[in-house]
């Protein structure tokens, strides 16, 4: 009888244990686990950054330190990715290069990053500029660099600092230490004076490279040297020239029977790809700058023009009306296997391959309006970034993130209007900005990073 009595007790206790165990498993597991949350969106507001004046010991270094901070702030702000916090909001005074900032003071004004630094004179009289970039929340230095240069070059130092900050905070190369070559225009529509002009990407250091006696068109930077190729009507013959910025020398690339236009450098800078029109047909050619050897890439009765190399040099995108309307094509670097990639409604022109290779920028004309747009090299993912009466001639910043182009206002019957100006737009379609030039400007071309082109 005791056995009979015990058995149910055992069963009962096992059963109860099972309940308890099950319940422990039920409650204990979640408590031990980590809470996992996916964050799939955030804000795209510009990053608030505080750029303190660089300190200096002498009046001239104090001045240059303040100027550098100003140029850096303007550069970063122009990119649309940063918001430079007003100096008047700063709680902590400039601290120079040797101290750690009081991070709490900077967090209070919402600065997520902070730049501190100092300018001084080296023993040989050269300017020495040091800066540090701080993460105010992690309370860590993110980067710190020293530059030494003649004091007249303080602007370039500012651009280099801007690039270093941009790269550290975005992970992408900057584009501030660059220049823009463009066609400066002035005068009435029928007697337009066009000059080749060069300036820093922020508009400073502006100068004219040609005197305006001869018509100049389509300037393009060499990706490897401080050289520009462009089309000039010198002697009333349109020919492709190369201009060396450092020496001011110009040379004719070649004397061809017909008309050459739309020149552009190959990625290695050793060849120029261009259109040659002869006997009523336009085809694409390359020419080796040193050997002057010419190679014909397209042989099509249609108009093939506006060629542009992929950054790896293996493919070429160009514009052709072989299908009946202007469309964008991609072919191998030897001219084989041309494929049409643009299939949207409207006409496409001036394709330009991005320096980072993932996109092609173009001009699109549709329903009476012009657009600057981008698509992948296989033609997918077309996106229009701008729209206006006339937007044309996109050119990429060397980091493939910003596009510059020119825009023309409609011309009215009384002859007014028709102004052309330079604009830039971010790859995302945001941050459209006018690039200020002394006169009208068209046909811009962005240089590679200065520091990488020598």
């Amino acid at each position, binding site marked *: 009888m005791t056995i009979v009595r015990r058995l149910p007790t055992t069963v009962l206790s096992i059963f109860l244990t099972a309940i308890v165990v099950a319940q422990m498993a039920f409650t204990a597991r979640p408590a031990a686990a*980590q809470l996992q949350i996916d*964050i799939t969106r955030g804000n795209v507001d510009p990053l608030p950054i505080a750029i303190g004046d660089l300190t200096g010991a002498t009046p001239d270094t104090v001045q240059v330190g303040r100027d550098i901070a100003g140029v850096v702030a303007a550069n970063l702000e122009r990119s649309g990715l940063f918001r430079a916090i007003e100096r008047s909001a700063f709680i902590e005074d400039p601290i120079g290069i040797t101290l750690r900032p009081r991070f709490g003071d900077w967090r209070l004004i919402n600065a997520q990053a902070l730049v501190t630094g100092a300018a001084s004179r080296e023993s040989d009289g050269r300017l020495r500029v040091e800066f540090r970039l701080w993460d105010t929340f992690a309370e860590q230095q993110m980067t710190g660099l020293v530059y030494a240069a003649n004091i007249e070059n303080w602007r370039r130092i500012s651009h280099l600092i801007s690039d270093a900050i941009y790269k550290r905070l975005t992970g992408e190369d900057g584009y501030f230490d660059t220049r823009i070559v463009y066609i400066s225009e002035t005068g009435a529509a029928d007697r337009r004076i066009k000059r080749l002009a060069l300036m820093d990407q922020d508009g400073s250091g502006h100068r004219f490279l040609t005197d305006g006696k001869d018509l100049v068109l389509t300037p393009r930077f060499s990706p490897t040297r401080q050289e520009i190729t462009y089309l000039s009507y010198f002697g009333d013959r349109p020919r492709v020239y190369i201009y060396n910025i450092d020496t001011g020398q110009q040379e004719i690339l070649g004397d061809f029977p017909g008309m050459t236009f739309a020149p552009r450098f190959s990625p290695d800078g050793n060849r120029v790809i261009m259109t040659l029109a002869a006997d009523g047909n336009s085809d694409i050619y390359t020419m080796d700058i040193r050997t002057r050897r010419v190679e014909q890439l397209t042989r099509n009765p249609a108009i093939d023009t506006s060629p542009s190399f992929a950054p790896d040099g293996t493919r070429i995108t160009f514009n052709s009306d072989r299908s009946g309307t202007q469309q964008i094509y991609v072919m191998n670097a030897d001219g084989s296997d041309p494929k049409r990639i643009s299939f949207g409604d409207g006409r496409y022109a001036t394709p330009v391959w991005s320096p980072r290779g993932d996109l092609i920028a173009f001009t699109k004309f549709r329903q009476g309006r012009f657009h600057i747009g981008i698509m992948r090299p296989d033609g997918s993912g077309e996106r229009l970034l701008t729209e206006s009466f006339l937007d044309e001639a996109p050119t990429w910043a060397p980091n493939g993130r910003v596009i510059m182009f020119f825009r023309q206002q409609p011309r009215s019957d009384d002859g007014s209007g028709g102004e052309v100006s330079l604009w830039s737009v971010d790859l995302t379609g945001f941050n459209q900005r006018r690039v200020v030039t002394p006169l009208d400007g068209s046909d811009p071309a962005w240089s590679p990073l200065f520091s990488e082109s020598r």
Partner: protein
Amino acid sequence: MRAAITISVAFHFALAAAAWTGVPVLFRDVLREDTPIIVELVAIDEETRAAPQVVKKEEPDPEDEPPKPEPVKAALAPPPPPPPAPVAEPTPPAPPEKVAALPPPPKPEPKPEAVEPPPPPPPETRIIPDPPTPKPVPPRTDVRPRTKPTPPSKAATFDAGRISVLIDKSRKETTPEADSEEAPKKFLQPPPVQQSPVRQAAVGNRLTISEVDAIRFQIEQCWNVPAGSRDARDLVIRIQFSLKPDGSLKAPPVILDRERMGDGFYRAAAESARRAVLLCTPLKNLPTAKYDRWQEITLTFNPRDMLGG
């Protein structure tokens, strides 16, 4: 005594039998309850996002709260004295970036070189920011009721059959949880019908949709997404941190997958995610009773929703 045991045994056998036979039918019931709950998840999600004022108020604005700066400043350690003459090599807080990549250009060109690291930071213990206490946000009374517990009328009567449901259900629930990658979903299931006190205790410490959503919403407001880059769509960053009961950080957040930090873009993005956590803590509106559910958090940052193109 014997009678009691006999009754108990009989009762439990009945319970077991009920479990055996009753389970399939009851499961269907449970499943039917789950369906509307999933739909609800979306509704609450959007509703919560549509209320930006929740976080707006919390932004520390020096102008709005003038008295705050002083105490905070006082709390922070004063900056270290200028470094002594370079006798001993100070341990760098972070190694300065190698700039060897920038070649020294010819004569008048600026010449970059690495800066010596600054004086060592004050002892390793970092000062966790103690930002101004935010204005308390009124509890969002509009969200919670949506999880609508069924009236407890039935719960009053103890139903043996229900216990077995509970037992089996709990096994069902815990198994997928252990290995599921779909992190948020598993916590988002609101408590099913609260039939018994046991049930209530079991689900009591899970976070509800709105609670998880509140955390997500706060972090999203603070995250400055690195957009426009080539591989932004494949970007996945994991940040781990533990919280004190008041929602502030126990220690600096940790970037997981550190081996990828060599990639400049990943590093910039990972640091932006870490900044989002630093910027957003202390987290607000966390249910204190469920502290052990949210004290350890791993956030997976992926801006895929924003980069449709």
